[in-house]
């Protein structure tokens, strides 16, 4: 069924007409973790759009909470795929820095984090470090991914998270880089380095 107003089609076939003003930020998919090993967004699966429809995609992370591994080694991380989620192992070159401050006011940090960057590494990229797993501890943040379907250029991303760490630090993590492929990126996966994603919400948006 369509909806026509004064001769103008507003919606038809389950979609708004392209001439209808809708704003520029569209919610594509929300995933809520419940003791999940991974959470993935794969183009064409479960209503996910992750192709040339949008030039930029934004992922919002709300209170991501790990199930185990309350230590420095814990990290929330991601990787991307060019084969529809069969393999998450695209080479990436990335850069990471952070600022930090603890609750007792004895330590502050502003530093490049050489152990968290990648130089053509195909592994998962850390977005945080040392996530706490106390009941009130979590991390929240954002990733921007630019033009993943482009087949000429590499694919840039930028992220920024705030983390309530296991040792009662607040840490502000910045990570950026590029997936070094000219193939279209069509899937992305998130997980913790150790254990499950106990809880948390990930929302995927497309930017027109």
């Amino acid at each position, binding site marked *: *069924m*369509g*909806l026509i107003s004064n001769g103008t089609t507003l*919606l*038809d*076939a*389950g*979609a*708004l007409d392209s001439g209808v003003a*809708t*704003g*520029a*930020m*569209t*919610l*594509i998919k*929300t995933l809520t973790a419940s003791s999940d090993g991974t959470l993935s967004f794969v183009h064409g699966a479960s*209503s996910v759009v992750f192709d040339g429809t949008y030039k930029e995609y934004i992922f*919002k992370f*709300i*209170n991501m*909470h790990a199930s185990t591994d309350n230590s420095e080694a814990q990290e929330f991380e991601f990787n991307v795929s060019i084969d529809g989620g069969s393999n998450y192992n695209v080479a990436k070159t990335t850069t990471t820095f952070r*600022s*930090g*401050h*603890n*609750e*007792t*006011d004895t330590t*502050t*940090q*502003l530093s490049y984090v050489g152990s968290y960057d990648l130089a053509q590494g195909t592994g998962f990229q850390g977005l945080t470090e040392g996530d706490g797993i106390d*009941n*009130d*501890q*979590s*991390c*929240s*943040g*954002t990733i921007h991914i630019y033009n993943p379907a482009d087949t000429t250029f590499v694919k840039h991303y930028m992220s*920024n998270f*705030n983390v*309530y760490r296991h040792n*009662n*630090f*607040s*840490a*502000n993590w910045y990570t950026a880089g590029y997936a070094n492929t000219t193939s279209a990126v069509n899937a992305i996966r998130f997980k913790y380095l150790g254990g499950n994603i106990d809880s948390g*919400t990930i*929302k995927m*948006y497309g930017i027109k």
Partner: protein
Amino acid sequence: MGLISDGTTVFDAGVMASGFGSSLTLIKKSTASSAGSLSFMNGSNGVVFDSTYKEYIIFITNWNPATDNKNGEFSFSTNGSNFGVAKTTTNFRSTHEEDATESGLSYQTSYDLAQSTGNQIICEGMGNGADENSCAILHIFDPGNTTFVKHFICQSSTMAHNNKTHNDNVSGYINTTSAVVGIKFECESGSQFDGIFTLYGVS
């Protein structure tokens, strides 16, 4: 009554289905004019600041104090009246002076908080000249949550009183598991200020 097109629900229960329309909702735009403070309180003056949205974004435009060299600051409330909620935060800055004599990137130990209930500075040393001001974007995640602390991330650009540009990066958590219901912006020492403060919800 809902509206369904070809099996796809477009409208129902008075709202447009997700995937239609914009996910960035303008909640409230407030313009400060010689104000002593400016607040967004859930349930007051059309403001929504609760679990309706998982993220709120506040755009601050042309924040200009009446008195020179004043900090722009904010604080949160869990009860609508007391803005003294503990926060642990981190703060770093890149800066450059108009005459190029000074530049750098450094942690700002004077402007972070360690479980402090005081105001968080986000724009340091704002100038009161006619063309001087600060602009900032503040993200607040899930203020209505009653399990976790509340994270926030803020970036600002300031034309400081001494003709420097400051790019301040402040983030941290409001260390409470109570719902945060309001936020207040002030200038240091109660200085009056002008500016536009716009609150958005992210669906």
